[in-house]
């Protein structure tokens, strides 16, 4: 299998003018945050960073909104609570009225442990699957991975990305801007 990006582009009929964005490379998370803040001040809006660990302050620097995951999780979690109560009520008091040990067919109290567990279980699935869904993953291919040093973004490099669909984007100028804020290496990445 030929994995050369040029060959792939030819195969898929994507022109060379198709650009993903410009990536600038930093050595230190603090430099990245500083640079990100300055790039944003220049008016770019479609920014991203690729870092080996979550860098504090980068969200605010690049204008990345807070994650909405919490709201998804709480809704799904409450569905879990409701599921447990409805399940126990339906099974015990509607579908199979079977008295055991003289206990009531349904009661709030003995439903609590399972309601608790299902709340947790549903919340966990919501946060796990929700996180991947919000991130658009799993996704095996991404144009940013065409960057020469993309593999070091999971090691020791901190990459700042100006994406091509930014209204202000113009490859050469974006590259210069990145260089001006301190990126050591800057490359236009096609994808």
């Amino acid at each position, binding site marked *: 299998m030929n994995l050369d990006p040029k060959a792939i582009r030819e195969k898929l009929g994507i022109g060379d003018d198709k650009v993903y964005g410009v990536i600038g490379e930093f050595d230190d*998370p603090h430099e990245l945050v500083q640079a990100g803040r300055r790039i944003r001040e220049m008016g770019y809006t479609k920014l*991203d*960073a*690729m*870092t*080996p*660990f*979550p*860098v504090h302050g*980068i*969200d605010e620097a*690049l204008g*990345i909104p*807070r*994650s909405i*995951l*919490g709201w998804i*999780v709480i809704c799904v*979690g409450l569905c879990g609570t409701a599921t447990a109560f409805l*399940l*126990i009520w339906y*099974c*015990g008091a509607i*579908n*199979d009225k079977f008295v*055991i*040990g003289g*206990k009531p067919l349904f009661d709030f109290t*003995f*439903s609590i*442990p*399972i309601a*608790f*567990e*299902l709340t*947790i*279980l549903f*919340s*966990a*699935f919501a*946060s*796990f699957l929700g*996180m991947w869904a*919000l*991130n658009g*993953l*799993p*996704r*095996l*291919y*991404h144009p*940013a*991975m065409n960057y020469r040093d*993309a*593999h*070091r*973004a*999971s*090691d*020791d490099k901190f990459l700042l990305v100006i994406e091509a669909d930014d209204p202000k984007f113009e490859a050469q100028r974006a590259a210069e801007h990145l260089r001006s804020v301190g990126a050591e290496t800057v490359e236009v990445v096609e994808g």
Partner: protein
Amino acid sequence: MEVNPPLVRARDYHDLSEQISSIVEGDVIKTPRKYWITLGITSSITILLAAMLTYLVSTGIGVWGNNRPIGWAWDITNFVFWIGIGHAGTLISAILFLFRQKWRTSINRSAEAMTLFAVMCAGIFPLFHTGRPWRAYWLFPVPNTDLSMWQNFRSPLIWDVFAVSTYFTVSLLFWYTGLVPDLATLRDRAVSKLRQVVFGILSLGWRGSARHWTNYEAAYLILAGISTPLVLSVHTIVSFDFATSVIPGWHTTIFPPYFVAGAIFSGFACVMTLLLIARWTLNLQNLITMKHLENMNKIILVTGSVVGYAYACEFFIAWYSGNIYERFTFWNRAFGPYWWAAWSMYSCNVFIPQLYWIKAMRRSLPVMFIISITTNIGMWFERFVIIVTSLHRDFLPSSWGYFRPTWVDMCTFAGTIGLFLTLFLLFARFLPMIAISEVKGVLAYEKQLFKGQAVEVAAE
């Protein structure tokens, strides 16, 4: 102001990736021989487990020593023992995360893996105690056409099914979530095509995007947040299996906190045993420092004392309640036929860990290795004492008995230890044992704290 020494010792981020990843990246054939020998031994013990379970299923659970009045014996003892061990993993990964304890990052991955493997071992016992494990789905409210019945939701045993299966699932999701960025690191470092593809798929296309990290951190925080009450609930519900019954020795309200403390105690001890071995065989001294070990020993001291308090409290209540059956049970526990089990438990769980008040003991590798093992022996005996001594003298003196395990009991338990160690060894060899991305976060933080010092430390 006194500054604590750095938690991790690495020159830079790349050095960290190198230190952790190199363990799993070497040629499989070139893995040290001592690894293969150990794996060979543990997997043979696992095969023994498979043989025992096959024998059990084909013959019936009469091959175990359980008999009236001791209907629950080693099976449930082992179940509670393994579940308890699992608790440390979630505690380290979730509760210490919420408390922002940075030292957790070096040990949380292996502790979480340990949780998963311990819960697997735990699950075997109730599953096979049912006698018909292929009907295990009857434990879940699947609409069933065979019986037209539902589970008895009034019973703590079904709560336990929900608690343990939720616990396993959530632990697995939590573990995998934490693993993904490191799998991406392995993918990016991989040289061979096979490793690139395998880790490429496992890492789900993670590329460290800041937008992804935002959601990722939210998910991680939520998972930690929900795992914290979960871990407390699991052993609480396990203790309900006993506490909601009417057997003296079981029917006590102190059980939930007492079980949870004991679980954390035994779990930390087990993490300690495994980490000491891993630290020694894989040379992880730079990443698992004395500071980590000492902190864990402090937790062992605290939880051991909580457990000791619970024992004392049980005796006090037995006397104070004026209930003659309760009094008899506790007198019989300490001085009856199973006195040896009870005193092993008191010594291992309460008396020996008191050595950790002395700093030199907390920092001595041989001492902590021995104590980690005695603690686990003690905690196994705790469950044995609670279950068997309470049952062997029940209300009807004519049915009093004395439980003796059969060779199948013993081999099955030994087999689960084999399974546990096998899984752990495989994990340590093929997946990053330490959370690379999280330790890098700590390193970044410490680089701020110890500007200039980092180089010195690395040069040592």
